[in-house]
């Protein structure tokens, strides 16, 4: 299931994405936005972010450097 959303994207990024589509490297802009979002969400999972913050706190409190 898909839904429609509105957002602002910097012109330069949008133009780069359009170029990829025009050159045939991507099917359409929606494909690029969806793939970019998926990749971001994969590498910024909440559990990872929270783990890193807990590591930060431990280092801040008890690290040696």
């Amino acid at each position, binding site marked *: 299931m898909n839904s429609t959303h509105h957002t602002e994207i910097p012109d330069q990024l949008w133009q780069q994405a359009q170029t990829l589509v025009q050159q045939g490297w991507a099917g359409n802009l929606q494909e690029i936005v969806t793939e*970019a979002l998926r*990749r*971001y969400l994969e*590498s*910024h*999972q*909440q559990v*990872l*972010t*929270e783990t*890193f*913050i807990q*590591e*930060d*706190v431990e*280092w*801040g*409190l*008890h*690290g040696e*450097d």
Partner: protein
Amino acid sequence: MNGDYMAKTSTALVVADAGPLIHLDELAALDVLSDYAAVLVPNAVWLEVQHHRPQALQQAKVKLIRQPSPPASDRVNAMTALYTLHHGEREALALCVTHSVNLLITDDTAARLAAKSLNITAHGTLGLLIRAVRQQLRTPSEVVALLAAIPQQTSLHIRPSLLIDVIARVKAEWASEL
């Protein structure tokens, strides 16, 4: 700053990504980096900070050194692609590798994952703020106030209940000094 606190100095070099420089400056707390011998800022990161928070680059207490874009190794390029990192993050990792610097300061989860894969230690704004007590750059109460100000004063996003937990840990650690 409490007069009982005398800052320690370090000979260590660190490499900075844009996030912590911006967030610490938003808190007027960039001086928590002042005990490092120097903070190396790769060119792409420098330009990013200059765009979003130019005043962060004009702090007299912190030795920020702009570095030309370093060559990226195949491993760094692979991590960049794998984690879809930005130019600044790629340059920061490359700088760590080329200058043998083992501490990257970043708030980006993907950059931290990539750093881990490259055996580079990475820490972020929260860790640096808390470390400032240990390094006697800030008092515990100052750091608690800075942590509490993050949601209102900075563009760093953190789940509110997690931030409350972090503040509680800091308060418990230095309970006798608060």
